[in-house]
């Protein structure tokens, strides 16, 4: 099962640290294979439900694999593959022996989270994920990364506790923590409103939606490059996924105002993150602020509350995961090569690291939402949904965001072509790292081509509810 394999990997990496890299890589491939196997099964047989331990809910815990979970698992597997390859070249032996068990446990947590249908179980996986992420951030050492990790840990725990209190209220109102049973038993009551507020706030904190985003730039900016990629691409998406699930399955009574509020915060995130990204002088921080901005896009689906809107948000999520991974990997390459990541001093990166810059540019294309990339499809769908539901002003935010993204991407590319005046030493970048970055960027573009297939997978198991029109 896709959850157990990473755990086995983590344990073996821990027991035999000398051979971590090999164990990690081999297990990465097996995990990818098992995810592929699960996907085939779901595509052919439809959504599946697995009662762990033989006890069906409400007494036991159920795992569910429908279209949405499957897509999250797949994107995790793809990103995971790239990260594993990248990291096998990135970390020196000393750090590597700590990186691999932590990364494998993070992967286990992500897979467990995406498959779980039990909100308390999700709390445990959320904590597992959070602790692993914090440890990975701190792996860079140095006071910046340690401080960022500490802040991230406190924020993560705070978010989890809010979520947990919501779980408590829900259990004590309805006697179950299983999502489908809760959906059946749910009635509007003050406790439910409180739970919804609590859980949403906790998850918003963990997803870094404006104005609760303050912890993200230091954490993603100071972590080692593959860790930043993991965090931006997958970890913040996990809490968004939970939020989406909750809103879709458990809280269909959500009010119109709440949706509008989230949409407003999302719009603010897009603008605020975009402007701040432009003002950054360090590449990794800029990319981190770009994440803040892109997360804002995801929340624009909330005020629309239509199936098309949700699908658009998920599409944006997927393409952002791929593109951001590519970007952070490219940044890591540049950092390794130049020894710093100050944007103004990117001396002729275009000539010296063409593959890396190509990856960065392609990823930028997807983030900007230019055709034919995955980002374009996502934005197009969202725009369409916005116009259909009569709330066209969100579309303006989308376009403004695209312009801002274009601005900072071109800024970097521009500097990459110029010659800086300061001499510096450069170190060779392992070819594996460059290929990984380029691969992810090409996938981000490729996501635009396979749109119909992805959209049909999303429908498996009707996670977004059945269309009423």
């Amino acid at each position, binding site marked *: 099962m896709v959850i157990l394999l990473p755990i086995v990997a983590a344990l073996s990496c821990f027991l035999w640290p000398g051979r971590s890299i090999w164990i990690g890589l081999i297990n990465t491939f097996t995990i990818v294979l098992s995810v592929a196997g699960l996907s085939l099964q779901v595509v052919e047989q439809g959504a599946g439900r697995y009662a762990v331990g033989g006890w069906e809910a409400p007494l036991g815990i159920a795992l569910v694999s429908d279209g949405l979970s499957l897509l999250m698992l797949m994107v995790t597997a793809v990103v995971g593959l790239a990260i594993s390859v990248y990291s096998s070249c990135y970390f020196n032996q000393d750090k590597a022996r700590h990186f691999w068990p932590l990364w494998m446990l993070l992967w286990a947590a992500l897979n467990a989270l995406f498959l779980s249908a039990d909100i308390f179980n999700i*709390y*445990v996986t959320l904590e597992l994920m*959070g*602790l692993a992420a*914090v440890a990975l951030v*701190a792996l860079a050492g140095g006071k910046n990364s340690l401080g960022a990790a*500490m802040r991230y840990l*406190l924020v993560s725990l*705070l978010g989890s506790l809010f979520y947990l209190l919501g779980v408590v209220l829900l259990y*004590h109102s309805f006697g179950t923590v299983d999502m489908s049973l809760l959906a059946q038993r749910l009635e509007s009551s003050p406790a439910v409103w409180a739970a919804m507020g609590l859980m949403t706030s906790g998850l918003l904190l963990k997803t870094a939606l404006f104005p609760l985003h303050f912890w993200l730039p230091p954490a993603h900016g100071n972590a080692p490059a593959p860790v930043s990629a993991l965090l931006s691409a997958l970890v913040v998406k996990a809490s968004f996924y939970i939020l989406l699930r909750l809103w879709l399955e458990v809280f269909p009574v959500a009010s119109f105002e709440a949706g509008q509020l989230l949409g407003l915060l999302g719009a603010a995130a897009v603008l605020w993150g975009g402007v701040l990204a432009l003002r950054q002088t360090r590449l990794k921080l800029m990319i981190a602020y770009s994440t803040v901005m892109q997360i804002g896009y995801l929340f624009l689906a909330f005020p629309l509350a239509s199936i098309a809107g949700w699908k658009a948000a998920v599409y944006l999520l997927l393409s952002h995961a791929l593109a951001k991974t590519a970007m952070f990997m490219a940044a890591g390459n540049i950092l390794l090569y130049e020894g710093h990541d100050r944007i103004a001093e990117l001396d002729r990166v275009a000539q010296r690291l063409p593959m890396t810059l190509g990856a960065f540019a392609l990823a930028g294309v997807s983030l900007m939402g230019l055709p034919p990339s995955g980002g374009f499809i996502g934005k197009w769908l969202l725009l369409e949904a916005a116009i259909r539901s009569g709330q066209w002003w969100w579309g303006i935010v989308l376009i403004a965001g695209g312009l801002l993204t274009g601005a900072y991407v071109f800024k970097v590319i521009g500097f990459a072509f110029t010659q800086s005046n300061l001499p510096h030493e450069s170190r060779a970048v392992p070819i594996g790292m460059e290929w990984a970055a380029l691969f992810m960027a090409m996938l981000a573009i490729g996501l635009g081509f396979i749109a119909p297939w992805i959209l049909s997978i999303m429908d498996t198991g009707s996670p977004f509810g059945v269309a009423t029109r």
Partner: protein
Amino acid sequence: MSAVFVYSLVGIGLFNLGLYALIIYPHLLRKILAVNIMGSGVFLVLVALAGRTASGVPDPVPHAMVITGIVVAVSATALALVLMLRVSAATGQPELPEEK
């Protein structure tokens, strides 16, 4: 069953007190303690409300959940404490550094 509700109200009180302390105090140890207090508050609510059964024997599922929660909280606290030590060793003071 008002005893049950008194306990759970205390739990909510702890939760909010902890939240206040977490935001206000700059010293990391206090923040960690505040998170622990918040956690205890949540667990208290969870366990207290489990006592509302008709038969008088409390519902065991929340008890199991709290045990799980405590282990998770202990693990997180351990990590937080060690991280705090490393931060204060690196920056010279046990507080969160200003963002750059």
